[in-house]
């Protein structure tokens, strides 16, 4: 089930909210767990069992680790837990990719299993891994209550597309959380904002990039604009989902971590990735990069660490070579930025630094966009004028004119301008701001429903990861 569907908005959510607030404190987790399993079952009936396996496995492993803390058995249990999670990922996400690679390298013809990718598997396996590792590192206590543990793993607001919520972040809230009017209202605002980002901006920008990158009437300007539109689409799609998840979390009394911090205002590529999908970045930092030695090693080893982390980040996003290339590309440009360009770039004016960062980030999104109609390699070469493409074509001009305001809204929405304006209004005209907020939320909700009713089913991009 996706948040931007009628089934979620007008069947699932009102029923779950009603039952949740009607039952007593002790039954709330049970309500959330049943609702979460139903939520997952609606999208992945057969794979719901994987969620149960993942929850049970990490529940038992963590208990075992805590009981034998400091012994080798605890270490074996940790390895066993990680193996179970990686096996789930390996079988259901990477089997075709790995077998294909083996077939290609060894000229064999091992049949591909073609298993369907379970929705959100990359998110919930990473969450459960972080839990067990944190218990092993003594940063968290093992959860003795299976219901609480299962609620953490299956919690529907962040189950299928993040943010990647670590157990320590919500450990206290799982057993004791406050439900306030202020929290509920903030949750509503955040959820509607995310819904608007996804339905009004991401989908429109997706339509624009689809038209500009489908190979009909391609032009140099069209390929650049299409790639920028794709980049903004991914941003609004994913940050919109994160907003909805954080908002829903608040409705049920949870405080989830932020996942985006206006990445498009970054002045360097490293900064961009500190602001983009922050919970994934910090996961790789804490569980891969630092254990490898981080940056407290000699430069060659540090570059190696970066290559490993970014290759894994690429693979996390998809079992395909373009994602590996995307990760390695980022590792290389970040290494160059840190070792060579950084000192030069730091002296540039802010605007130039932003242009520099955006240029390299845009190119990374070309590699990332494996689904571009004409193929990412053709997009990349076409953007630099090879292939005899015109600078601009009639379809490019038509779509850029048609989507001009959407693009302007997208660009403004990707910066903190609107947030700053809202804060200023709240300080200077608190009553006007208080009146406007529910009115705008209401208008946004109506508009979203109007777009949904007129449109087709729009799954989130990040579901496939």
């Amino acid at each position, binding site marked *: 089930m996706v948040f931007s569907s009628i089934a979620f908005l007008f069947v699932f959510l009102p029923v779950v909210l009603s039952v949740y607030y009607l039952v007593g404190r002790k039954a709330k987790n049970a309500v959330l767990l049943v609702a979460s399993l139903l939520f997952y079952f609606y999208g992945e*009936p057969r794979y719901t069992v994987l969620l149960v396996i993942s929850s049970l496995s990490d529940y038992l492993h963590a208990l075992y680790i805590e009981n034998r803390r400091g012994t080798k058995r605890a270490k074996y249990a940790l390895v066993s837990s990680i193996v179970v999670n990686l096996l789930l990922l390996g079988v259901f996400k990477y089997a075709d990719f790995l077998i294909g690679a083996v077939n290609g390298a060894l000229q064999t013809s091992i049949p591909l299993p073609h298993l369907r990718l379970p929705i959100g598997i990359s998110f919930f396996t990473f969450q459960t891994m972080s839990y067990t590792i944190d218990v092993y590192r003594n940063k968290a206590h093992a959860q003795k209550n299976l219901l609480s543990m299962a609620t953490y793993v299956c919690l529907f607001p962040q189950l299928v597309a993040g943010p990647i919520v670590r157990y320590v972040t919500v450990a206290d809230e799982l057993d004791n959380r406050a439900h306030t009017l202020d929290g509920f209202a903030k949750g509503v605002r955040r959820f509607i904002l995310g819904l608007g980002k996804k339905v009004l901006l991401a989908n429109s920008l997706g339509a624009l990039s689809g038209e500009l990158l489908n190979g009909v009437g391609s032009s140099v300007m069209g390929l650049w604009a299409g790639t920028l539109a794709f980049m903004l689409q991914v941003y609004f799609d994913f940050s919109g989902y994160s907003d909805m998840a954080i908002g829903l979390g608040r409705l049920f009394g949870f405080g989830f971590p932020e996942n985006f911090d206006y990445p498009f205002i970054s002045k360097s590529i490293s900064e961009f990735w500190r602001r983009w999908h922050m919970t994934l970045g910090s996961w790789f930092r804490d569980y891969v990069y630092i254990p490898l030695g981080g940056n407290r090693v000699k430069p060659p080893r540090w570059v190696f660490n970066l290559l490993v982390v970014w290759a894994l980040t690429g693979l996390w996003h998809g079992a395909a070579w373009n994602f590996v290339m995307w990760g390695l590309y980022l590792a290389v440009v970040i290494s160059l930025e840190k070792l060579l360009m950084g000192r030069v770039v730091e002296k540039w004016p802010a605007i130039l630094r932003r242009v520099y960062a955006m240029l390299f980030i845009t190119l990374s999104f070309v590699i990332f966009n494996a689904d571009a109609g004409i193929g990412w390699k053709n997009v990349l070469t076409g953007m630099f004028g090879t292939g005899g493409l015109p600078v601009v074509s*009639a379809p490019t001009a038509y779509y850029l004119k048609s989507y001009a305001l959407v693009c302007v809204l997208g660009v403004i929405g990707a910066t903190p301008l609107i947030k700053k304006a809202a804060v200023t209004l709240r300080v200077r005209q608190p009553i006007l701001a*208080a009146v406007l907020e529910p009115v705008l939320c*209401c208008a946004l*909700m109506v*508009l979203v429903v109007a777009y949904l009713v007129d449109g087709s089913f729009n799954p989130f991009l990040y579901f496939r990861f």
Partner: protein
Amino acid sequence: MSLKKVEKVKNIALAAVFAGALACGLLLHPLLPDAVVSYSERRYYKQFPKMSASVVLNASWMGEFETYLLDQFPMRDGLRSVKAGALFYTLCQSDNNGVYVKDGNIFKMNGSYKEDSVMRFSEKLNTLVDTYFKKASVYVAVIPDKSQYLRPHAHLQLPYDEMTAVIQAHLHEDIAYIPLKDTLSLQSYYKTDVHWRQESLMPVVERLSAYMGFSVGKNAYQPHEYAPFYGGYYGQLGLSNITPDTLRYLSWDGIDEIEVNDIEHPGLTGVYYEKGLAGMDAYDVFLNGATPVLTLKNSRCTNGKGLLVFRDSFASSLAPLMIEGYERITLVDLRYIESSLLEEYVNLRADDVLFLYGELIPNNSDLLK
């Protein structure tokens, strides 16, 4: 009022608005009866999908349930108008669902030009002629889409002139191409629909008669009106401030003597199917709309001439105006009958054969079976 109180009232309002919206969506739907037909969108609405263990476990039920909820959502048409209004008037976008408006006239973006398809169209016609019509006089005409009468825009129109040149270049030499573009204008088409107006077709009939040598001009036509006519583009656009059309169909003294035989609907016998006016597409009034094979017999004409028209929906309103010149006109729609079955279901004896298609068919010639 203190700031704290303002904040509290705002929070209550936000929570109430949200809860109210969710409750409305949840409760209104089961209270309202499910609609069966959407006249504005010209389609049947999805009904509650049947549930079984297999369709739930393979998740196909969930997809159907979502479609059902979208179709049956309360105030669906009003919300679609809200979306179209926001898109056109707030975001200044040029089209909605690939449909756009110019001066109260609705047009559809017809996709990109496919020369391979156009060449395949000519080859298909050549094959049919070689197989069945070596002795008949064969004609081809392509009806321009109404967007051809707008200011040229390379992206919004198919290259009609280029397309017809390719068609002619690939047709057998003894097949005559009949140009129609100059016999029509934007006013020849409905504002809210793809089709042409029957009352505007006299120049087309005259052009065809000049090329094909059949006689017309004796019938005195009386128009009949049906309004409001919401064409197919109206529903796709979603805007409610577009003036609907008036549909006119022409009768003449002796129209009742025209015998109509529809292979799919044997009970239908008239040139105009007036019950169709109240159906999903009022344009079905013309020869009952889409059907694979239909024959018109004119007992008043005794010249012994027969015409076979390979056609799409445009010919439904044109054929009644041509029957004056033939004893028999047979309309064949190759979108609904395989070419290989023609001998089995169609009397292929004809003096004249006309291939008459709107420009979308050559550009999507794989539609022809």
